């Protein structure tokens, strides 16, 4: 269990949060530091609490104790829309795009200021050219991959300083995973990213830093390049099936 050490240039700092959903104590001390300009990945088994950590940062499941500090401001306890408006974009797991809205409306809805979409149009359609063609189609007529593209694109519409991206590769065909990786790598040039990714290869190729969450606690953090070499740790927290993949990743 690594103690909490403040890194220089920290954009977001989650400090020992506890989160309850109903009576269930889901997070029991999660600390995550997200340095600016890099990709930090949350790793952990299914049900470890990765999604809940993202939701706690955003105030969707507000933490009961602990602190969340964004750009030096304590944001725990604030309403979710206020937190988002400070410049945090969210790409939820299982592609929660709006099915009754067209692709264009999905993007328009994400505007915080008039003209947000116009200003970022070239970036968005540059990353996901398909979306331009699908503009008029309602959300529930998109394929799974297209929905995932739209979910990421939606987070790019306003000016965000931090993106919370939850399992962007989930259920995508290998070729689309490649495309998604390219997109995220490009985004890193302008924003900071906190990523949840089960695909270890993808995580190891993208992220600079990692935090392992296990059973509602953050148990390890450090440089991704070190983790790739530490088979024991990977084995212990991420399961044997990933062990072979580590070798591939190296």
């Amino acid at each position, binding site marked *: 269990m690594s103690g909490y050490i403040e890194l220089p240039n920290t954009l977001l700092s989650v400090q020992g949060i506890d989160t309850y959903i109903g009576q269930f104590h889901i997070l029991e001390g999660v600390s995550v530091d997200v340095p600016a300009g890099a990709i930090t990945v949350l790793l952990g088994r299914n049900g470890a609490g990765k999604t809940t950590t993202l939701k706690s940062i*955003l105030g*969707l499941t507000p933490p009961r104790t602990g602190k969340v500090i964004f750009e030096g401001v304590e944001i*725990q*306890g*604030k*309403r*979710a*829309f*206020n937190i*988002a*408006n400070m410049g945090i974009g*969210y790409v*939820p797991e299982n592609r*929660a795009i*709006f*099915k*009754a*809205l067209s692709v264009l*409306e999905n993007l*328009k*809805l*994400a505007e*915080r200021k008039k003209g947000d979409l116009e200003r970022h149009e070239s970036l968005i359609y540059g990353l996901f050219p398909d979306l331009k063609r699908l503009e008029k189609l309602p959300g*529930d*007529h998109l394929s799974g991959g297209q929905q995932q593209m739209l979910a990421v694109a*939606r987070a790019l519409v*306003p000016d965000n300083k931090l993106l919370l991206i939850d399992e962007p590769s989930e259920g995508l065909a290998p070729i689309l995973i490649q495309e998604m990786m390219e997109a995220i790598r490009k985004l890193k040039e302008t924003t900071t990213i906190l990523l949840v990714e089960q695909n270890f290869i993808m995580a190891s190729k993208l992220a600079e830093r990692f935090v392992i969450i296990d059973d509602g606690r953050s148990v390890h953090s450090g440089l991704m390049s070190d983790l790739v070499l530490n088979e024991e740790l990977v084995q212990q927290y991420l399961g044997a099936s990933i062990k072979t993949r580590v070798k591939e990743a190296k």
Partner: protein
Amino acid sequence: MKQLKRNKIGLYIGIAAALIVLVALYAVTGQEAFIRTTLSGLTLGSLFFLVAAGLTLIFGLMDVLNFAHGAMFMLGAYIGWQFYTNPTFIFGMLPAVLSLSFGLLLIPLIKPYLIALNLSEKLQKNLPKLLYVLAALAALVAFWQFDILGLAKTAMVAATVTNVGNPLAEISAQEPMARFWIRPLMLVISGLLLAVAVSKPGDKSQFAPREKIGKNLILPIVLLVSLIVSILVREQAPQIVLLMNGNLRFALSIVAAVLFGILFGAIIEITMIRPLYIRPFFIVLMTLGLSFVIRELVQLLWDPLAYQMSRPPLFATVGKAATSVGEWLRTGSSTINISGVIFPTYRLFVILLGVVMFIFVTVLMTRTRMGMIIRAGVQDPQMVEALGINVKQVFTLVFALGVALAALGGIGAAPFLPINPLMGDTYQMQGFITVVIGGMGSYVGAFVGALILGMARAFGDYYALKLSLSPAIAEASTVIIMIIVLLIKPRGLFGKKE
């Protein structure tokens, strides 16, 4: 793509079925009776739509079943009727409503300073409680010996007296200013105390940027000006209203009912429904209880009687039926001849009202950002919030809009239905059935469902009378239709599958 086609095919089948039923009814009923019954059905359908549109939007977005919707329909009728017949009561109460709202609306202006205060934990906890008590006391002083019941009864006096001479001054008498001024003042103080209490002074975990103060200045200023005006004109205004053109007065009655609906809906949502979103079942009980409270208050104010509102002049001239729309507009004839069928002109107006509101809701839902937020929120309010949108505020607006539509239905029905404390109950029941048939959360479904139900009731009534069956047949027919629709499409005609 495949799904798109399937939806289209379903739509064509539905339209074809509707046409077949209409042609069959036409053949069986005969032209004259068919046209008359269809127009009656459309009139009913229009009112059902006004009730169901609010119900379906509120349920779709917030999962709230509003069992007080019928009571709000009824309140709309009472407010409109009061305004039309004698607005003394409304203008007498207006300063109270405005002064309390003015005090409350100062929240965004004072909150940034209040939460910056350094208060001990104990004070933070107990100060709001003390303020609530003081606010209640101030309100008590404000209404001390204020003759609300007397004001409410003025409309009844007017109904009997205005034909004989013009004793308007007498029936719109208000308390003299020398005694009155303390009331709005105490209510502003009461509202302000409440505002301070709900701002939780000293609680630094809250978020209230000072930069926004300027933006929030407009509404309180508008309210303050209207408050002062409302205090100054409370005596003359009722007379001015009563002496103006009857059609204009009716238009203003509609505006009054709608404004009341918006205000009342917003207050109910913020104070009673918002704290219960985490306990949906309690909301059902709360709205049910609220409907009883509203009904009892109305009985207290206006006695458990039924009133008949006179029709505005445009629909009031009795005699020969107008032969064209132009002639009707010129003579204000109460009936119009539509291919040999004599039909009340006012009911045509109600049909028009329903169609206009359907267009309004359609434009709102498909062309505006607000509509986009509502459609998205129906599916996933959390994700809408995560985009940086204040979903709670949207909930309030949608609830207010829904109640305003119900109130509009109420005043629309007032000139041809007896106004009484129970008048909303049937419409609430039919509204719920409409929503189930049309599909929860779909305003298009509410429109189609309302048309189907309106027609079913009209033709049910017609055949019950003709075949001397029990009129309950018409009521039963709507439930039978609901069952058939649910067997074919369990989520209703336009319901989305999960």
